[in-house]
């Protein structure tokens, strides 16, 4: 089996980081800040001037610079977006009551990934958008990158990128989670120096597509299905939870992670939770922000097995095991 992995990754977070109290004062929370604080959140990251495309550009530039990668080396770009708005350009400020404004139907054909390819001179790269999976989109892009690298010998480097920003004025609280803006990018290659992809697994339950009206059912569905998906991923990887050194989470509430850890029988100490409070849930970049920070903090040793799990509307549960 061809060894494929995440050879390098980086992320971008907006500088503006309002506290829960500040967000509550601005009317940006659905419920009291104290509830979110009790669930482990402290502050969000909010993009004030930068668009989702700006964040994607910045992240990819940083990644190429950090890894001394020439733009010509990128063979394929997989651009993941959790929000529908992330797959279009922001063509005009959205009027009050709207979350996206398109001036002309031709605006539908203005794709962020094409602009990114052009502006960053990724001249050898073909591109594709990965969306309609909520926060699980970036996991799908990694999965598809791996599949492409296994299937197509001429593809050597796949750039996976994800960037999402909530519309201005939108509530920062979604189902008892504090939502941040942010972006991540990674290079997926054969024979990686680190983060070999051991197994990936995804379950989609389209019955819950109407996320707005099924909030309670979605909360209830989350836990047992998450447990099943994690179990199935471990089986695919041929390992057990005991073999996992770190759980690299999506930054939904710490409370929900404590419950899920209880469901799967995983010690709390294995959860890399440092970013949940200070970063919040960045929609589609959490796990890879956390992977980078855990790496930079020196917590990961070569050979460590890592469990990454995320959940996206749609509904989608995604999980992967990496060997650092």
């Amino acid at each position, binding site marked *: 089996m061809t060894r494929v992995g995440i050879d390098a990754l980086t992320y971008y977070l907006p500088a503006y980081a309002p506290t829960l109290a500040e967000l509550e004062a601005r009317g940006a929370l659905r419920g009291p800040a104290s*509830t979110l604080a009790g669930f482990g959140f402290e502050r969000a990251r909010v993009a004030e001037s930068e668009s989702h495309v700006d964040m994607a550009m910045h992240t990819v530039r940083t990644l190429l610079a950090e890894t001394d990668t020439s733009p010509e080396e990128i063979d394929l770009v997989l651009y993941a977006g959790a929000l529908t708005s992330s797959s279009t350009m922001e063509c005009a400020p959205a009027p009050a009551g709207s979350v996206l404004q398109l001036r002309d139907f031709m605006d539908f054909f203005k794709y962020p990934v094409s602009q990114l390819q052009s502006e960053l001179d990724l001249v050898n790269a073909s591109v594709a958008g990965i969306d309609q999976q909520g926060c699980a989109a970036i996991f799908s892009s990694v999965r598809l990158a791996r599949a492409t690298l296994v299937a197509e010998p001429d593809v050597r480097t796949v750039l996976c990128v994800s960037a999402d920003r909530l519309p201005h004025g939108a509530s920062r609280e979604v189902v008892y989670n504090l939502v941040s803006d942010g972006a991540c990018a990674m290079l997926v290659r054969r024979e990686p120096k680190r983060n070999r992809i051991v197994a990936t697994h995804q379950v989609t339950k389209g019955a819950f597509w109407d996320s707005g009206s099924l909030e*309670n059912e979605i909360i*209830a*569905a989350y*836990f*047992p299905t998450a*447990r099943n998906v994690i179990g199935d991923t471990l089986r695919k990887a041929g390992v057990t939870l005991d073999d996992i050194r770190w759980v690299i989470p999506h930054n939904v509430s710490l409370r929900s992670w404590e419950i899920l850890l209880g*469901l799967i029988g995983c010690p709390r100490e294995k959860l890399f939770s440092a970013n949940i409070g200070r970063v919040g849930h960045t929609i589609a970049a959490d796990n890879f922000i956390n992977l980078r920070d855990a790496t930079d903090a020196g917590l990961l040793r070569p050979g460590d097995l890592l469990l990454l799990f995320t959940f996206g509307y749609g509904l989608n549960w995604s999980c992967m095991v990496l060997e650092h």
Partner: protein
Amino acid sequence: MASRPASERRTILVTGGTGTLGAELVARLAGGSHASVVALTRDAARPRPGTLPPDVQMVTGDLRCGSAFGLDPSDAATLRARVTDIVHCAADTTFNRPLAEARATNVAGTQGVLAFAKECRHLQRMACFSTVYVAGRTTGCFAEQDVGGADGFVNSYEQSKAEMEAVVRDAMRELPIALYRLSTIIGDSRTGEVTGPNAIHHALRLLYQGLAPMVPGRETGLVDLIPVDFAADASHYLFAHEFSAGATYHLCAGASASATLGALLDATMTAFERYRPAWRKRSIARPAIVELETYELFVRSVEEAGNQVLLQATRAVQAFAYQLAYPKVFENRHAGVVLAPAGIAAPNVLEYYDRVVRWCVEKNWGTAS
């Protein structure tokens, strides 16, 4: 107590005579003897159960009104003079009632029945119904001679019934009383019909609706459930044919006729899919079986979030589900010895459980005609 000549007709007073078990028992008592049966019911407006024979007399009274049940004094006196047998089925079986309210029916109400019984000069036998869940938080084997509650209780129902038992045991010194502890009744094993939905059925409905993400317990923990026809057959036989004053019997499934929590959840999901094929499209996962600590954390989170729908759902499950976190087996040796010669035994729950779930689904938990 003065005995009557055998030729005189017996009169059996049944409290809770229109309830799930009471109605079944009244039908057997009336049909299997030459006794007159008087069914005491609290709710005068409640329709007469179809299973009640026409000669069963219905009397409206309330146990919480003292030893005369709120009857006209002369009617109460007449009843006392007639009654030879009492079957005390009435109970408040709501699991999460405030303790004072549960006690009002289950303890004070029973005290009223016992006071009534002491004034029945022809009384020959009396049965009081309790629950095997007086065991409370006890784990392991719970036998018929055991007195529960040493480790506390999961809900007010259990506690009030344990307190009721103490009152009954005290009265056994003066009255010919047998105590029948029932397991959880889930329906009729022959038809699946549920005449009295309880916490189990509420939980099944929440599971059907996809609002039950987890239950506390262990995959291999046994869940003791019985059908109403077994409960009625067994208690009728013990009372009418093998009455033994001072005895306590467990009318339960026991280890051999119980199923594991995991098997019951699997059977539930299978039945939902079989009897409502469209339900499969909803992609509802089988609830996770979790440690009590994890379940309590989830409940606390729902409370903190103030989500009213999930709050109601978790509270509905909570009242009985906590019992699953205290695995135990109810031993029913004494009952088995007496009932076996009559061929009465609880069927294995998996033999009829599918019919109960089917009834719930097809009758929309009793709301569909």
